[in-house]
């Protein structure tokens, strides 16, 4: 386990496995007015791992994930995805990177005016993936099969339950077969049973497609079940890093409050 205190700086880089680092965050700063949300945040994410970013509500977890996908621009620092800095990218290059990085929104963000089929088709069409209509149909059915909701293909999002909407959002994220999936609080607003199902689904998907997962959460059940490593975000900094077991044994007050 690695800890950051007043005097020490946490070791968050993976120098021993540089080729396996798919996402590298260097000294990231982000503020909104006088509110400093991210302060010198740095972290490496290794290919194939499931990394959970744990923090209190309003601690900047969602801001971090939106900086990673380029929805928010950092004030300072850099983010490299697959070795390429996204801050220096053109819009076209960023779109290409985004086709390889899936994002599951906290609110699912399904398009209300489109059917499930059209929701899943949208990223395929917009990223100009060169596939025939038959292949698109097969990809949609495959993604819906993966989340166990093939029968909802012609339904509208408003006709689905909260858990089903989350699964459809996950299917839409999966349709481009991303190498990294960013999950923004995937179990928020779901009942405990559905939450467990979604977590299991996330783990199944990671095993099946060998994706790298970055999960933003404060749901300890999700953290315990889905994490290979956990980052504790405190005051905008990467405060502690380790496995769930390591951090749950920590005597540090700021870490203990999450695992108590």
């Amino acid at each position, binding site marked *: 386990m690695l800890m950051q205190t007043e005097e020490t700086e946490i070791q968050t880089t993976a120098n021993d496995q540089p080729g396996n680092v798919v996402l590298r965050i260097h000294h990231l700063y982000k503020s909104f007015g006088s509110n400093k949300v991210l302060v010198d945040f740095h972290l490496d994410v290794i290919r194939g791992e499931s990394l959970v970013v744990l923090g209190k509500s309003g601690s900047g977890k969602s801001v971090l994930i939106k900086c990673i996908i380029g929805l928010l621009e950092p004030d300072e620092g850099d983010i490299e995805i697959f070795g390429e800095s996204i801050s220096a990218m053109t819009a076209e290059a960023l779109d290409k990177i985004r086709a390889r990085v899936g994002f599951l929104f906290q609110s699912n963000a399904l398009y*209300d005016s489109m059917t499930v089929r059209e929701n899943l088709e949208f*990223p395929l069409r*917009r990223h100009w993936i060169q596939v025939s209509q038959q292949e698109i149909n097969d990809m949609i059915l495959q993604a819906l099969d993966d989340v166990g909701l093939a029968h909802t293909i012609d339904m509208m999002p408003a006709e689905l339950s909260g858990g089903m909407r989350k699964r459809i959002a996950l299917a839409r994220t999966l349709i481009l077969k991303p190498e990294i999936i960013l999950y923004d609080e995937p179990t928020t607003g779901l009942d405990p049973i559905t939450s467990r199902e979604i977590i299991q689904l996330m783990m199944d998907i990671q095993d099946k497609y060998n994706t790298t997962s970055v999960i933003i959460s404060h749901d300890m059940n999700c953290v315990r079940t889905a994490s290979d490593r956990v980052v504790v975000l405190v005051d905008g900094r990467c405060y502690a890093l380790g496995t769930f077991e390591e951090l749950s044994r920590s005597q540090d007050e700021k870490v203990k409050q999450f695992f108590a």
Partner: protein
Amino acid sequence: MNLSPNLKSFLNEAGDIARFTGRFFSQTIRPRFEWNEFIRQCFVIGYLSLPLVGLTAFIMGLVLTMQLRPSMVDYGVESQLPAIVGIAIVREIGPVITALIFAGKIGSSIGAELGSMKVTEQIDAMEVSGTNPFKYLVVTRVLAATFMLPVLVLLGDSISLYGSYLGVNVKGSTSFYLFWMQVFDNLSFSDVLPAFVKSFFFGFAVGIVGCYKGYNSMKGTEGVGRSANSAVVLSSILIFIIDLLAVQITDALGIN
């Protein structure tokens, strides 16, 4: 300089809308063009507004004619009723009333739709799906509103004049041919053109204000309602301001 908070907020919003409008123009001229979405929006904004515009235009023509008749009879110029109503509808009442109905229906719908997409992260989802949401959502809607309102105004004017024809015949008897001859004999190019041109500006104002309010919606569902409401209020005020400017410009150019 000390500005009152209300004035400061008004100036800030005016600046934001000006920037938003500038962004609209810069995004409109750059490829790629979202033709499919533009055509879909023309259908939603134009075609689906036709029943409401048609109904209100028909009633407006009918009522205007019936209310004008007693005064025209008093002055002994009842025969001029089609000409007077025709000029009033084509020059002023048709474009303005149609634009206000349009602002109520389309301004609120765009404000609420984009506002709801904003607070449920659908706009962000579009961006990560390789789509420029401003082009896809804003440019298409503003262009569709700009081009569809003049078409609705032309159709609304025609329906309104038909309502007027029925109004003339409630207490009198005028043939369909004679009614239209009287209307068109008294209409000139300078009556039709300024009214047609200003309806493009009305449509643009409704589209840009609806999109601005929706795209910048905040504070959850309450913010969505506020966006829809303020889109209608602001675009209605802008319609009257544009109308005022249009009459000054046509006066100055001698198009009367």
